Each structure stands twice: as C-alpha cells, then as structure tokens.
C-alpha cells in the first residue's frame, strides 16, 4: 500500500476557510435593521395568537364563507387554524432569524478525540463499581436478591399470556358460510325475499342469506355471506353445463368477497358485464363464471348455485362449494 503512494506528492493541509463576518457584525445600521425584522416577526406571532383568541370568541361557528380555491369553508375553523399556524410559525422564524443575523458569530475549533477512555480512568471506574456494590449489600441481603429474581423472572410471563388472544384457531369458520340448500336470498338492506321476476335484465341486487328466526346477523356473518345477484340475458352466459345449472333464467350469484384481499367486489359494469374490485382493480367476467381478466386476484369469485323454492322465491341450491374470500394457510387449493 505504502509503495503505491510513494511517488504521490503530499497535499498541503488547506486549513479552515476564512471566517467571513456578517454585515450586521460590523454595520450598526444593518444590525438595527435585523433587530427590527426579528421584532416584527415576534409581533406577527403575537398578532396570530390574539387573532386566534379573538376568532374563538367573536366568530360565529356556523358562519361559512366562500374562498376561491378552498370552496365553502367554515370561517371560525379557518381563522383558528390560520391564527394558530401564524403564532407558532413566526416564533420559529423570528428565533432562527435572530440566531442567524445577531447572535454571537464566533467559530470554535473542536478537535476530535479517541472514544476510548484512558487506562487509568477505566481501572478507576471498575474499582468504584466493585466498592459500591459491596456497600449496597447485594451480596449480603439475600431476601432482596431472591425476591428480585422472582419479580424479574415472572415479568416476562404476562406478554406470553396476552399472546393467547391471537387464538383460538378459527377451525372451519373460514370455510363455512350461512348459505346452505334452500336458504332464501334476502335483499340487503330490507331483508325481503326475492322472486326471479323482481329482477329486470341488467339489474343487480345485494343479498344476504335468511337466518333462522331469532338469530342476529353479525358483521362476521355479513363479511362472509354477502352475495351479489346479477341478471343478464341467459344467452350471454359462457358457462359449462354445471355452472349454467347453478344460474336461474339469467340470474347468477357470486360471493361479493374478493378472492384477493377480501374487499367487497360490487362495481358492476352492466354494459361490459365486468365486476371490478375497488381495492386493487381485480376484474372478473360475469359471463364466464367470474373469471379473473385483470388484476392480482388468483381465483374467480365463488359462484352460489341458486334456484327457486315452492313459493317461487330465489333460494340457494347448496352452500358455497369453496371457501369465500382471500386465501389462507389451511385452504386446500391454489
């Protein structure tokens, strides 16, 4: 290494650049000007505070004013915000301006030192620690030592117990819904059963399963059970025989829970027959059993087999044949 540098000319240490004093340091007029500027900034802050308090007291909270870019804005809130911002901002600006123009302008050279303390200091420190710990009686008072051991030993247990809240495992709850054979499709909200004739071609309806009497619908239920009912012309379907038998006179039902991240997929474009998820733009083709045609979703939306019951209302032919919603560890498919 040193050989490589042998021929290189040594640079002179350029030293520190010359310290230039500010105008205010040698010019009394400039100094006075800077002083006035700082004072004005502090006074602006004071005006801001007074304005804040005054607008709190005097401006009617229900008064709205129109401002060009902001639009219709509540006058009291605007005045409070502007006043508070001014009172804080100008204090900061004034302090910095003061420091930059008027406060002592001296350059001090502080050399860097080694971090390591001297050997003498180090041995002195070790000696002190040993002395003091003996005096504190750590070795002698065994009751304190043991009880402290118990306290410190146990303190790690409470976080461990709290971890239990991560469980219990959901068992089969992720794979099941309230849909099963013969369960009626009810409008959401409203909770009315639907007949096929109630839906015109080109219409949609948000539906939930009819729960047994006395059962309350929870958000967990809705999060799994939500279904979108779509009616198109039957000849527009491009389905295999099994999936076609799951539809009824052009009415097709899909889980509304996105197979990607579980958002509610309900942006239905009735001209293109596409269903769009608002979260990550996964797009599903309704005519092809919700096949993914764009976006990050890996699986089509689960289709609910529907038919009509003896009273003519739409019912589920069977429950979902696959878990609805996003993938999870125990799900037995891609």
């Amino acid at each position, binding site marked *: 290494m040193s050989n490589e540098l042998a021929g290189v000319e040594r640079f002179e240490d350029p030293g520190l650049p010359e310290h230039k004093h500010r105008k205010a340091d040698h010019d009394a007029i400039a100094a006075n000007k800077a002083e006035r500027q700082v004072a004005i900034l502090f006074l602006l802050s004071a005006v801001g505070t007074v304005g804040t308090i005054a607008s709190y007291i005097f401006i009617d909270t229900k008064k709205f004013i129109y401002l060009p870019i902001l639009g219709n804005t509540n006058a009291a809130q605007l005045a409070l915000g502007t006043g508070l911002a001014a009172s804080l901002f100008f204090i900061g600006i004034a302090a910095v301006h003061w420091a930059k123009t008027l406060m002592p302008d001296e350059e001090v050279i502080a050399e860097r030192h080694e971090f390591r303390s001297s050997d003498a200091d180090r041995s002195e420190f070790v000696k002190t620690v040993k002395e003091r710990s003996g005096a504190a009686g750590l070795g002698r008072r065994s009751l304190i030592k043991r009880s402290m051991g118990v306290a410190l030993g146990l303190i790690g247990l409470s976080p461990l117990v709290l971890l239990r809240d991560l469980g219990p495992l959901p068992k089969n709850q992720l794979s099941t819904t309230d849909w099963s054979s013969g369960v009626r499709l009810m409008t959401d909200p409203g909770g009315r059963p*639907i007949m096929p004739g109630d839906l015109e071609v080109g*219409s949609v309806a948000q539906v939930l399963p009819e729960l047994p009497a006395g059962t309350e619908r929870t958000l967990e239920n809705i999060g799994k059970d939500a279904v979108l009912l*779509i009616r198109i012309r039957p000849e527009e379907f491009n389905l295999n025989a099994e999936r076609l038998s799951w539809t009824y006179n052009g009415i097709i039902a899909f889980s509304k829970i996105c197979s990607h991240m579980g958002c509610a997929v309900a942006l239905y474009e009735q001209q293109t027959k596409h269903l769009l998820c608002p979260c990550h733009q996964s797009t599903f083709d309704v005519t092809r059993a919700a096949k993914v045609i764009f976006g990050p979703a890996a699986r089509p939306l689960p289709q609910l087999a529907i038919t009509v019951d003896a009273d003519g209302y739409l019912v589920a032919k069977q429950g979902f044949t696959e878990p609805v919603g996003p993938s999870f560890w125990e799900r037995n498919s891609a």
Partner: protein
Amino acid sequence: MRLNKFRRNRFAGPVLVVAALLTVGSAFSIASALPSAQKSEVSAQSTLVDEGKQIFLKGCSSCHGLNAEGGAIAPSLIGVGAAAVDFQVGTGRMPMADMSQQAMRKKPVYNAEETAALAAYVASLAPGPAAIDPASLTWERDGNVAQGGQLFRTNCAMCHNFAAQGGALTNGKYAPSLMGVAPQHIYEAMITGPQSMPKFSDKTITPAEKLSIIAWIKSSQSEPAIGGASLGRVGPVTEGLLVWTFGLGLLIAVAVWLATKAR
C-alpha cells in the same frame, strides 16, 4: 198562486223557450265536449310524438338509426322508455359531444319541451319506464335519510364513493359525482341503468327506499364542511396529495433557509 200568476205573464212563453234551449244546449255541449277533449289530448300526444320524431331524425338518428333501431356505435332505443330519454337528454349526456368512453353530464342541448317530445317519441316505439315527474318525488317528506344512507352504502357507494363524489371504473369509465343532480334524474338512473350502471328494480329497492336514497344524497350534498376545506371529500387521496406537495414543499423550503448562512 205565484206560479199561476207567473204562468199568465205574457213573457212566460219566450222565457220558457229560452230556458229550455239553454238547458238542452249546454247539456249537449257538455256531453259532446267530453269526447272532444279526449280527442284533442290524443292529437296533442301524437303531435308531441311527431315533434319528437322530427327532433330525433335531426339530432339522434345519425347514431341511433332512423327508427331508433341502434347502430354500430349506439344502442337501440326501442323499449328504453321515456325515463331513459329524460335522464340522458335532460342531464345533457345525449347528444354526446364526442365519442369518448363515456357520455358526461353537461349543459342540456334540448330544452324541457323538446326533451319531453323526444321522450314521447321513444316511448311510442315500445313500452318502457315512464319519465319521472319531479313533483311526484316526495323525498323531502317521505325520504328517510338514515335508511337511505344504509341503502347507499350497500348498493351505490362502491362506485359513486361513500360521500357520493364519484369514482373510477375500468378503461377510463367512471361513476359520476351525484352532487347537484336533480332528484328525478337520480330516480331515473336507478330504474333505467344508464351506461355502465346496472338497474335497481323496484322490488329489490322499493320506490320508498329510492326516495330515501335521494334524501340521503341531498343531505350529503348540503352537509357543511365544518373542518374547513373539504378537499373534495374523497378521503385520503386529496389529503395525501396536499401534504406531499405543499406540506413537504414548505418543509424543504424551510430546511434550505435554515441551512443558508446570513450575509
């Protein structure tokens, strides 16, 4: 006694004749007026249809076909009903200004009478939903804002945004903002399903529930922005944009100023 006296009066004969003529004449005119009034209404309707057809031939047929049968670039209008015409023409969406992805709301080209004539013509082609009379929409009296909000969040918010400010769909299409839309046009959109929007049948969302939805949209529209500038009420998007551009810009400017030496 009095009657006898009257009977013998010399004007009794002419007065009786005049009275009888009046009675019979007015009875006849009332009787004959009934069918003639109906007839004139029918003829007024058919003139309205004719007027509408003339407007249609001039303004719409180049895309929708001479008989509204549709073409390569425009759908058939047979059976869409007066409601669809009232919505599309009344909000200025039709006629389209250009062949973009989607017809947008703009200043209507046709006035109310011309729109009514067009609607009458299209309605005469095949039955469809009738145009909604704004006076029949009693949303202010019968609409339930809380129920409307629930319905809106389940059925409309995914496309039109939780505050009815509109949102994006695919390929440049979008669900428009519902601020400032006339109540009858909101109602007609729900029953006719214009463009990308699906229909919402009266059995799945009843007419009373539709009034509640309108009441909620109107209450959302008139909701004051208490917290200052509402930034379009579309949530974190505009707020983030403001903070990342103006907020960070201000911080950078301050940092640069802090680091410069005073002269």
